[in-house]
Every structure is written in C-alpha cells, then in structure tokens.
C-alpha cells in the first residue's frame, strides 16, 4: 500500500491545524455560517437533518487493518459506534459534534487518512475497482494510477473552484466494477495492438437529474500521458462548464451542449500544449507508487480442507457460492463481506464489526481491505484454506450474510432519515424489501439482481443503473416511490427506464415483490437474469405486472 511521505504527512497535518482554527472562530462567533460553510465543506463536514456529518475519503477504497481500526475508534469516541460506507468509497459519520471534528480529523491523520475534497466543486475521492490488485480479469492494478491522480488533484490550484464537483473512476480489469461510464471521467485500462497497457478515456457520464452514459473521448491513451491528458480535460471543463446554472454545470452537460468533437479537439489542443510541462517527474513518481502496490507475498498451501468444508457445511457452501470471486493467484479467493444483513441499514458497520474485519484482514488477508461502491467490504486476498475460519468469525459478528449480488444486496442512500436534500426515505424501504425476500426464501432462486434506491433525484443510491431502481419523491407532502427498470452499471452500462406512476410507501414493497416474482415466470430458465429477461422482453410485461388494474382497464 501507498505510504505517506513527509510532504503528504505535513500537508494533511497543516490542513487539520488550519481547520481547527476555523472551527474555533466559528464557535466564538468571528466567522458567520456563510463564511464557514465553504471551509467546512472543504474538509468534508456537512450539516444534515439531525446533526453534522463527516465524510471521510477511503482513496480508491483501499484500507489496511490499522486504518479500519481507527475508523472504529473514531466511531466509538466521537460518534454513535458505527459508520456508513457509501457508493463513493467513503465512510460517513452521522453524529459528530462540531467542536470534536478537528480531533476526528487529527485521528484520521494519525493513520494517513483525511476528509479533504470529499465535498465541494473539486476533484473528489478517486474511486477504483474494489477488486483492484486481486481480480483474475485484471490487466494491471489500477490503484497506482488512482493514487497518482489523487496526488495530482489534491489542492490542485486550478481545480479548487470547478463549475461543479468532479468524479474520476479507474479500473484495470475487463469487467467494470467501478461504474466508469457514470463518472465525469472514467478510465478503463486496455491494451493496444502492441500489447502495451493504456487507457480508454470515457467522459461525461453521470447520474443525478440528467443521467448520462459516458462517451469515449480517446480509445487508447498511453499510460505515460494520463496526467497531462486528464489535466487537459479538467481545464477545458473549467473554462467551458456552465456556472450560471447549477443543474447544467456537470461536464456531462458541457459535453452534451458542445458536442463530443469540439471537446475532443479542445482537449487535444490543450494536451499538446501542456504535455511537455509534465517532464517525466510524474512518471518517476508513478514508478515509486507502483512499487508501493506490489502484490502481497502469496503462500502456497493445499485447498483440500476448503473443499471438505464446503461439502460438510451447506451454509458455508452457500456463502462461498455468492460471496467469493476469482483471484489472480492460485489457491486464493476474493471475499466480499456483506454489510447488508437482512433488515439492517445497507452500508452501516458497527465499530465491533469494523474491528472484526480488521482482525480478519490482518490474520488471513495480507492486511488489506477494500470498500466497494456497492457498500460492502472486501478482503481481497484470502487463501482458500482459511475461508472456513474467516466464515466462522464473520458469522459470529453478524457479517456472514450470503447475499452478494442478490435481491437484498441493495444500495441505498441515507435518504430523508439523514440527508437534508432528500425528498423521501430510502433506508426503511431497503430494509423492508430485504426482510420480505428473506421471508419468502426465494432470494437464491432469483439470482443476480441489483436493486438501488435514492431518496431524491441526485441519485446517490445509483438508482438509474439499478436493474430495478427506486427513486423516492415528495408527491403533495407524501412519500412516493418511482420505479425504473433495466439500468446497468457494468461495462454494458444503461440508464433505467421509468415504469410508470410511482407507488406510496405502503405499496412499494408489494410492487417490488410482484415485479420480481413476475420475472420468475417470465425468464426462460434459471440462468436468465432479471436484466437479461428485461432486455429480451422490454418494459411491457413488467408494466403489466406492476399496474395490473390499469392493464385491464386498457384492455376493456
């Protein structure tokens, strides 16, 4: 893993000290809220419905055990004993007190973490494939690139006041687990004809009010050109992006209004003029960073015990079927720990659970953890012979739910239970859906199905790219839930289509149940996923299931 150098350490420490002074001045009244707000947002501090909220970056989702333990310590000491992992590989604390936040930031700095640029119109936490460094389908570990991007973007003087926030995602694998096409810049590592690694550069994707699938700006960008090219993109956006209308300020609109060709031409022109100012220092830096991400020292051991345990214990077998993914090293597996126990709040982990995961990573996982954009925690390198022990420990901590990728593995934003921008609640709906399908005992028959819920049109819960998306709205002072179908956040990205009128809070869970059980009748066989069935049949049969009365009325 990357280790802070003296510069990083000094930078983060001085930001904490600076913010401490700002908080003191806010409390003694010498700063007004209008003056203080931009300063607190620069340090990840929001004011939500019931309390402040501190958003901490987990750069490219990577943590070690010590860092995870520190997150647990912070949750215990200054919050209510838990934290919320988000789709942007951050952790959010929902109950800090203003005066404690500098101490929290200082505790983060002790383990080389911070909350800088987790808010504001800057380049936000760079996200990456949560299986980075471990996935069997990976060309190269994308984290070195993500770290380089982080160092370049953090406090970049030109990019502190962009027209709007800016999000970059990186993947080094063929399968897209980083939702690259729904980011301002998506970077997909590919090889050119000569077999050299480089990037397909995607631009202008995004969710929110106007969801858009990103467009390919460059089919192949040599690795060495990455920083100057990204700098060129952000500079062009900084100049052209609309500052007159917040809702039209994201780069997706800039690309849409100016056309891809014009953006392409401007980026290439800017790139040509700044390319040589990146004299190679960035490449020397990248070499150092890459060395820091060297693979762990894998061991060779027999996996016979693992196979035997699978045969002997059906619950363990079921968990291995859903929660493991293929690893690049022989004998190893990637473990996804579900933070979605049926009926629990998606993404919330208690401090005790964080410590259990930290211990497991230390004991069995080469001291590495990842946060996934699907709000789960990953142990990227576990030898198969240790899986039975890992499973047993997870079970004890209520972390062994075998539901990764299934109907109860729901992404849900905080919604109106926490978020000041929300128009309806998300969490209770997610809880009820998961509980309902658990009672029906059909979750494993249903197979891969992604339900994603947001409490407003900002789409933090990724509902547009959910196979089933749910959007909470306020209809005349009552919570109302709109369903979209057919969204997809992988390499075959698509934006879901609205099914029809929304449902009340009482109707939404039965509607989802009808939809999913209806799909079971529509699929050709058990291998055809919900998304495949939807793509084969289109909206009509699902609409008929969702709105049966209306269907009859139309037929009459």
């Amino acid at each position, binding site marked *: 893993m990357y280790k802070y150098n003296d510069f990083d350490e000094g930078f983060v420490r001085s930001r904490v000290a600076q913010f401490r002074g700002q908080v003191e001045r806010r409390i003694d009244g010498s700063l007004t809220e209008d003056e203080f707000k931009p300063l607190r947002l620069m340090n990840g501090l929001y004011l939500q419905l019931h309390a402040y909220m501190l958003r901490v970056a987990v750069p490219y989702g990577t943590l070690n055990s010590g860092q995870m333990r520190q997150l647990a310590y912070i949750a215990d000491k200054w919050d209510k004993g838990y934290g919320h992992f988000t789709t942007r590989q951050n952790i959010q604390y929902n109950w800090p007190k203003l005066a404690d936040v500098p101490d929290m930031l200082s505790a983060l700095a002790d383990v080389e973490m911070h909350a800088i640029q987790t808010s504001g119109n800057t380049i936000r936490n760079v996200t990456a494939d949560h299986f980075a460094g471990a996935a069997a389908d990976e060309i190269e570990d994308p984290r070195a690139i993500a770290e380089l991007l982080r160092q370049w973007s953090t406090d970049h003087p030109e990019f502190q006041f962009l027209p709007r926030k800016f999000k970059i995602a990186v993947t080094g694998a063929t399968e897209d687990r980083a939702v690259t096409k729904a980011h301002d810049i998506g970077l997909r590592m590919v090889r050119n004809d000569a077999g050299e690694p480089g990037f397909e550069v995607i631009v202008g994707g995004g969710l929110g009010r106007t969801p858009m699938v990103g467009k390919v700006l460059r089919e192949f960008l040599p690795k060495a050109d990455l920083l100057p090219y990204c700098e060129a993109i952000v500079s062009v956006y900084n100049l052209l992006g609309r500052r007159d209308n917040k809702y039209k300020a994201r780069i997706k609109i800039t690309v849409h209004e100016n056309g891809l060709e014009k953006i392409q031409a401007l980026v290439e022109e800017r790139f040509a003029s700044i390319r040589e100012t990146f004299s190679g220092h960035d490449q020397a830096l990248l070499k150092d960073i890459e060395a820091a991400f060297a693979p762990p020292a894998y061991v060779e051991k027999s996996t016979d015990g693992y196979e035997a345990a699978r045969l002997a214990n059906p619950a363990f077998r079921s968990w291995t079927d859903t929660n493991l993914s293929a690893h690049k090293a022989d004998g190893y597996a990637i473990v996804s720990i579900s933070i979605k126990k049926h009926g629990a709040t998606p993404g919330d982990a208690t401090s005790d659970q964080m410590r259990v995961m930290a211990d497991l990573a230390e004991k069995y996982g080469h001291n590495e953890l990842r946060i996934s954009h699907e709000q789960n925690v990953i142990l990227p390198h576990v030898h198969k012979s240790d899986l039975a022990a890992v499973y047993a420990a997870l079970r004890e901590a209520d972390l062994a739910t075998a539901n990764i990728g299934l109907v109860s593995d729901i992404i849900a934003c905080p919604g*109106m239970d926490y978020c000041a921008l929300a128009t309806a609640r998300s969490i209770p709906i997610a809880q009820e859906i998961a509980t309902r399908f658990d009672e029906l005992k059909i979750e494993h028959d249903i197979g891969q199905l992604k339900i994603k819920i947001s409490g407003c049109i900002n789409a933090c819960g990724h509902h547009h790219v959910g196979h089933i998306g749910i959007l909470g709205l306020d209809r005349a002072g009552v919570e109302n839930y709109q369903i979209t179908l057919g969204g997809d956040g992988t390499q075959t990205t698509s934006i879901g289509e609205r099914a029809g009128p929304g449902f009340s809070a009482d109707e939404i869970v039965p509607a989802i149940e009808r939809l999913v059980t209806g799909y079971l009748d529509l699929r050709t066989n058990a291998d055809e996923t919900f998304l495949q069935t939807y793509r084969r049949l289109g909206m009509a049969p699902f609409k008929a299931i969702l709105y049966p009365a209306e269907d009859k009325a139309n037929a009459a």
Partner: protein
Amino acid sequence: MSRAFTPKVVTANALLEGDAVWLTEDNRWSRDIREAELITDEAHGDLRLLEAQARADEIAGAYLADAKAGENGPEPTHFRETFRTRGPSNYAHGKQVELSDV
C-alpha cells in the same frame, strides 16, 4: 387581497450539535417544537426569521417551516419536519431518545 398565510415556526440547526431547534416566543432555541412560537402573520414571520438569522453564533440555516396548532403546542405538517422532531427511522437516535424522558 393577500394570499392565505399558513402558520409557520422558525427552525434551524444548533451550531454545536447540529440538531434541529425551534425559536420560542421568548427568544430561546428549543429542542422541542412544541415550545416554538407559532407564527400566523406573514410580516411577523419575516421579521422573526431575520432576527433568527442574525444569531449566527448559536444556529445555522434558519428557515420558516409550515406548522399547525396542536394540543401541546405547534406540530409539523410536512413529513420532513416531522422527522426533524424525532430523528432517523433506522435507529432510536436523535431526538426520539433525548426527548423520550422529558
């Protein structure tokens, strides 16, 4: 003719804790909406909001929220404001704990 004015309360987030507070008639910030001043006159509401906003070392983000007269004092009329009086629905955190023993 002036349009109908729906009754309001002045509400904000407390500066130190961040939780919801309401302005009382005697100019305190209460954690309990039932102690709030129910404002029935538009001009008075505007004035009270300005006065509230000036108290920057106590609160942040003051605004007028719809409310109605209840048995024990003002009650919210919109579900968002109802949530602010009690806290989140996934845990017994926030005001629902703090006020349960009042």
